[in-house]
């Protein structure tokens, strides 16, 4: 248990970093209503671009912007494959992810690269407080910007696109452009989170994003189940998603401390996600079955009563 509590600051730091990725996934999965699998690749693209440019001596902030831009390009490619070539978004994402796998290798010229420079985000326990503060500030900034953006005319049109394409087109909204833009913004954020993750881990790796979509979805589901009863406010839902990511990594931390062999961790994280995704559905099913049974029981009671009266 003590090990778990000692591990919590790491879970918080990781949760905040992955929370930014989850916000990116939120834009496609929740706002645009598209399942985008580009993210598994674009998170590593962000990490790779950051490490390579940073090692080349560029300014850290600039490197992070470059990582964001690289993710934007990846998202745009997925968007164009979907809208121009007419391929389902899930397949379009898989195709881009595959391309990125090779591209990420090319960017680093190998499968992984260590970061040669100290930045403001690190796993070093003495500086973990700084890391958490920075990550928190960045999260808050991103949530604020997105909250403002989705309140603009353009942002509203993107929300409408995800809600009802028919209505959007009838109201003069260019749905294809909006989808490409949403995918671009989403993957830009994902790659940005990849750049932070590379700093946290001290290296970029072409495998650093494998299974990322699952973590993103889990964070969203945990987050929305936390806040949806209280409010539908967009900013609070985004914050909930980041909190969801922190909870996810805390659970992960707890499980790791149970002394599981590391080979089983992927299986475990899939199960954690499965539970969080399935519980709301099963609950709904259980309650509707229960309700219909109750209705049936009441009906039969009423019938019996009727017979007795007769």
């Amino acid at each position, binding site marked *: 248990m003590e090990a778990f509590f000692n591990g919590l600051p790491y879970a918080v730091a990781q949760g905040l970093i992955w929370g930014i990725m989850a916000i990116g996934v939120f834009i496609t999965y929740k706002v645009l209503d598209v399942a985008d699998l580009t993210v598994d690749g674009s998170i590593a693209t962000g990490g790779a671009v950051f490490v390579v440019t940073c090692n080349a001596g560029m300014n850290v902030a600039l490197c992070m912007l470059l990582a964001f831009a690289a993710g934007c390009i990846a998202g745009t490619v997925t968007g164009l494959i979907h809208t121009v070539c007419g391929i389902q978004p899930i397949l379009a994402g898989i195709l881009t992810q595959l391309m990125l796998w090779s591209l990420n290798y090319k960017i680093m010229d190998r499968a992984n690269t260590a970061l040669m420079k100290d930045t403001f985000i690190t796993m070093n326990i003495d500086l973990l407080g700084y890391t958490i503060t920075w990550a928190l500030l960045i999260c808050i900034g991103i949530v604020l910007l997105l909250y403002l*953006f989705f*309140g*603009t*005319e*353009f*942002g*509203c*049109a993107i*929300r*409408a696109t995800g*809600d*009802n394409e*028919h*209505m*959007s*087109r*009838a*109201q*003069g*909204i*260019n*749905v294809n452009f909006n989808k490409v833009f949403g995918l671009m913004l989403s993957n830009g954020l994902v790659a940005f989170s990849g750049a932070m993750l590379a700093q946290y881990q001290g290296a970029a790796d072409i495998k650093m994003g494998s299974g990322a979509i699952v973590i993103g979805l889990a964070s969203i589901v945990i987050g929305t189940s936390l806040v949806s009863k209280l409010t539908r406010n967009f900013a609070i839902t985004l914050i909930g998603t980041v909190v969801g990511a922190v909870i996810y990594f805390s659970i992960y931390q707890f499980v790791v401390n149970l002394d599981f062999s590391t080979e089983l961790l992927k299986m475990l994280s899939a199960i954690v996600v499965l539970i969080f995704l399935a519980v709301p559905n099963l609950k709904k099913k259980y309650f509707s079955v229960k309700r219909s049974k109750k209705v049936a029981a009441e009906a039969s009671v009423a019938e019996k009563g009727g017979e007795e009266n007769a």
Partner: protein
Amino acid sequence: MLEIKNLSKTFNAGTVNAKTALDGLSLTLNDGDFVTVIGGNGAGKSTLLNAIAGVFQPDTGDIILDGVRLNGVPEHKRAKYLGRVFQDPMMGTAANMQIDENLALAKRRGALRGLRWGINPSEHAEYRKLLLTLDLGLEDRLTSKVGLLSGGQRQAVTLLMATLKQPKLLLLDEHTAALDPKTAAKVLDITEKIVSENKLTTLMITHNMRDAIRYGNRLIMMREGKVVVDVSGEAKQKLTVEALLELFTKASGGDEFLSDRAILS
């Protein structure tokens, strides 16, 4: 003025499923015309409205609205000139957005959507007044999600959205068909009111002959992708269901009368 010249569309051309939905159709609408459109199932009524709206490109023919040739103009750009309400009440509104947000989206139809606020506080008074005219109690529910409304309420809101920014042409595709009779009558009354107050040029498809006769100043009947009956003015005023059925029988050569009668009545 809307001019449609020699419009044709064959779906799945060159396959066994080829279906000619529009067959050299020509039609001219004068400004302020309120035209009701009837015809049996598969006559091409929806296809005509979709061709005008730009859902697909026709095989041949021209669509000219106030001198602007619409061929090749994508659907979302044509929306600038068109107001549309669909048969399915779910199709015309964004369910997860609020009533005011939906109206604000419609108010900006045809305008560039930039980084100004998606809705201004000053718009609320305007929307409240508009919703008040519907007399459905929606004026106090501006911030409700549209998904919480009934089908009839949603169609009424869609009508407002289609006409909030005055369209050059209003396209209504059986927009009351999915509603119960009482709600349908109410939505039709609202339609009539909006159309006449704004003098909108309108094409309204209906499967109800009585409605087709009661509303509008002109009635057209379609069959196999063509306009086969076109009545307006006084002749339209004097139409009865019986007379209309007779016209339809004549137009279809008599053979389809029985099967289509049920659909039209």
